[in-house]
């Protein structure tokens, strides 16, 4: 039952695994589709999976938020897109709570009026644009299909359609110096963008970047350079009213993503689609990482779940620390009893600060958060 104590809403994450190209740094579950039937089957399966949760009586709360992520939702072919739009209008919007947020991720090269407008009409009220960079060279390095021009076009379009627009940015590519980052930030903020996600480039072993780096084709930018960029970007954004409310997320007050906040606060959510993760208070579970297998299961009336865990008290506490410290809110000091000495030392090094009975990481602290958390939960 996805309605644990103290929570009267749930969120929905909907995974669309199709992309127009596979970016060399990406380790999400997504692929360039060659099966013409699959997208339609897939979006139908999403609706079926959702219905199964409803019919099973496992969830009956209003939706706090819905997030269509990927993959690239805007890369869906028209027929699948139409079905998806209908589903949003018929099944999701009626269940949305009054402040409810519905986000769709789009990539500039597939963000056109014909893609976006039907969604907005159906009830989508937040658009996240995968900009990544405003620098031609950096975009090429990242293997993206978008360009500085298509970026601006997509931003303008999104801003014209909804008030709440977010842009994604990748920092710390080799050769991506502050000049380039600044140009990207300025270009994005020249539009009425309310929200920004800025990620430091991570090189994962199982990606093409991972293989390239291992083979010595190029070297990641030195840590000092990456952290320098991050800290300058944080300052720059803050000066323009974008508050860092989580280590990778910045927003004008009132435009923080409701959806992401629910992950960090450990409020329940259902994940629909291949590889999607769900959380229901004490349990976490996730679906197959294979779109075809996912469809087959759902079509056969089976649950597409292939992993499930029940968190013990220690694990729950660890999660609270690990997620809480990602946010600007931080965590209550009394969750950290017995660790005062560590916290004091970190405070002296300006990695954390105490604020109204809570402990929160500073931007410099966020950069070493994994290390801090490992020490805290030791």
């Amino acid at each position: 039952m996805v309605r644990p104590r103290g929570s009267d809403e749930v969120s929905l994450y909907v995974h669309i695994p199709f992309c127009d190209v596979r970016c060399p740094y990406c380790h999400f579950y997504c692929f360039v589709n060659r099966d013409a039937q699959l997208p339609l089957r897939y979006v139908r399966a999403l609706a079926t999976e959702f219905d199964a949760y409803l019919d099973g009586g496992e969830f009956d709360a209003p939706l706090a938020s819905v997030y269509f992520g990927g993959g690239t939702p805007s890369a869906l072919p028209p027929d699948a897109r139409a079905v998806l739009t209908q589903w949003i209008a018929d099944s999701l919007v009626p269940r949305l709570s009054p402040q409810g947020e519905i986000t769709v991720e789009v990539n500039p090269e597939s963000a056109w009026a014909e893609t976006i407008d039907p969604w907005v009409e159906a009830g989508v009220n937040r658009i996240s644009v995968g900009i990544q960079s405003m620098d031609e060279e950096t975009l090429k390095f990242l293997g993206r299909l978008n360009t500085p021009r298509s970026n601006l076009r997509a931003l303008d379009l999104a801003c014209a359609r909804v008030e709440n627009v977010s842009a994604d940015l990748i920092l710390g590519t080799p050769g991506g110096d502050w000049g380039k980052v600044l140009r990207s930030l300025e270009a994005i903020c020249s539009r009425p963008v309310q929200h920004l996600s800025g990620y430091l480039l991570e090189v994962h072993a199982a990606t093409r970047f991972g293989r390239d780096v291992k083979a010595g084709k190029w070297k990641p930018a030195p840590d000092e350079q990456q952290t320098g960029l991050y800290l300058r970007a944080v300052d720059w954004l803050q000066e323009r009213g974008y508050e860092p409310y989580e280590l990778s997320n910045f927003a004008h007050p009132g435009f923080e993503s409701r959806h992401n906040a629910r992950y960090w606060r450990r409020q329940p959510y259902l994940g629909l689609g291949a590889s999607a993760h769900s959380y229901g208070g004490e349990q976490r579970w996730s679906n197959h990482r294979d779109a075809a297998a996912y469809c087959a299961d759902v079509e056969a009336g089976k649950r597409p779940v292939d992993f499930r865990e029940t968190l013990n008290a220690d694990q729950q506490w660890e999660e609270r620390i690990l997620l809480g410290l990602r946010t600007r809110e931080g965590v209550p000091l009394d969750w950290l009893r017995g660790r005062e000495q560590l916290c004091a030392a970190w405070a002296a090094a300006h990695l954390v600060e105490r604020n109204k009975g809570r402990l929160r990481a500073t931007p410099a602290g966020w950069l070493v958060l994994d290390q801090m958390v490992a020490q805290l939960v030791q």
Partner: protein
Amino acid sequence: MALDQAHTRNFCIIAHIDHGKSTLADRLLEHTATIHARDMRAQLLDSMDLEKERGITIKSHPIRMDYKAADGQTYVFHLIDTPGHVDFHHEVSRSLSACEGTLLVVDAAQGVQAQTINNLYLALEHDLEIVPVINKIDLDAARPDEVAMDIVDLIGCELDDIARVSAKTGEGVPELMEHIVRQIPAPKGDGAAPLKAVVFDSQFDAYRGTIAYVRVVDGEVRKGDIIKMMGGGQEHEVGETGFFRMQQVATPQLSAGEVGYIATGAKNVSAVQMGDTITTKANPATDPVLGYVAAKPMVFSGFYPISTEDYEELKDSLDKLKLNDAALTYVPETSAALGFGYRVGFLGLLHMEIVQERLEREYGLSLIATLPNVVYETKLTDGETMLVENPSQLPDPGTIESIGEPFVKASIITPREYVGSVMSVTLDRRGEQSSMEYMDGDRVQIEYLMPLSELVVDYFDKLKSVTRGYASLDYEYAEYRVSDLVRLDILLNGEPVDALSVIVHRSKAYEWGRDLADKLKELIPRQLFDIAVQAALGGRIIARSTVKALRKNVTAKCYGGDITRKRKLLEKQKDGKRRMKQVGSVEIPQEAFLAVLKVER
């Protein structure tokens, strides 16, 4: 039935390490059919896992064999395989006291080595008859004739007294058996006199209590006797007597000349001290067999559980090890840096390594061992003498009149071409040469008086490396001497870490300080802020280095609510930290506490 002493031979095997004691023991067992061919394995008497793995003998292993000799008579052989490492000298010495003779095994290719000579002297001190055995005659590099000449020079025996064998192929073993019968005297105990049995080892058995391994010198002992430890004074009722085959075999009695065991029922091994003499309460003997000397720990190290909750378990584990290792000592100690632990005393570094490994492997403990140190005899200005077993406990320099440290007599045998290198590494460790003798052909024996503290760190490794493995080393305790010693402290972020303090000679303090600061910089992983590593001498900083702060360790994206993945990552990081000790706000890896051992010198 009492033992027929005339047809009994009690002997042990001594040799330089790896010259083939254990393998030769295998052949004797096989030849006397003490063990069936189908049960034969290599190094049969080495029973502990560690002994098998490392190919070393740690404990003495007695065994009884029946040998049908050329004269048609059957003889009882009591053989004791002895440890081959200097740390266990004491053990060897006790085993010798249970015998009339010894096989002195010498490798036909390597010839006489440092331990050969020291063991020989030890055997002569015990008035043992020596049967020299040249082993490994099957080797291509064997030069038995030359080695035989050396042995003749060394012992003053006849060429004919030397047995030549291959413990590998068994060649020469039948002849060796006859050497044993012929050359080793029969025991001549008085069966009617009061009981005198010398304890050369002991073993703890959960059901039968402490089992004393004994050589009966006079009299006899049987089940039900009330025995008395002549040195320790404790009394026990004998639960069982017997002798050693591959297993223990109970017999109604043990009598003069016999090697066997006495189950004492004592729940505490210290109630049956090795080297003590057992007699009976009813009819006590007047003098013990040996003047009793306890094995004295020579080096000490602080053992601390990485996780403080394991403290009790560490204590229980040490208690259990102690049951079969009388030389092990430990007292609780507290370190400001490491919390509660034990100061553990060992016979030497090998002994320490073994204990540490057993605690970690058999008892599943994760430990930090501090750098081993010797015991310092500190004379204070007020006339008191204080024994310091832990560098951090050295009193304030202002109150110290002088510091004494143990010196050992080290003897080294090396091919002539390496003499220069040996001298220079030994001089570097404050060794004073006391003699140098040319041996056969091209080898030299050098004797040094040197501080034990210099020897324990890594002297042997260094010696081996400068002589391409050819040098052999043996040493024994000589005396305490006053040296110009100082305590070197290590500070991390300005806080002294007591467990990293070392006592060094003043002339080396600067070099050590620099090396240690550098080494720690390598060993301490980057953390959340800069860590200043400083070496200080009496409050003055003499060297420093900095561990730069970690700049980046974060998973930027937390996508689609996949928190499980993040938690798994965290688990991995936690595992990595399990071998680190949090000292103040700094995490120190286990190895850092032995950093000095890794300093290249």
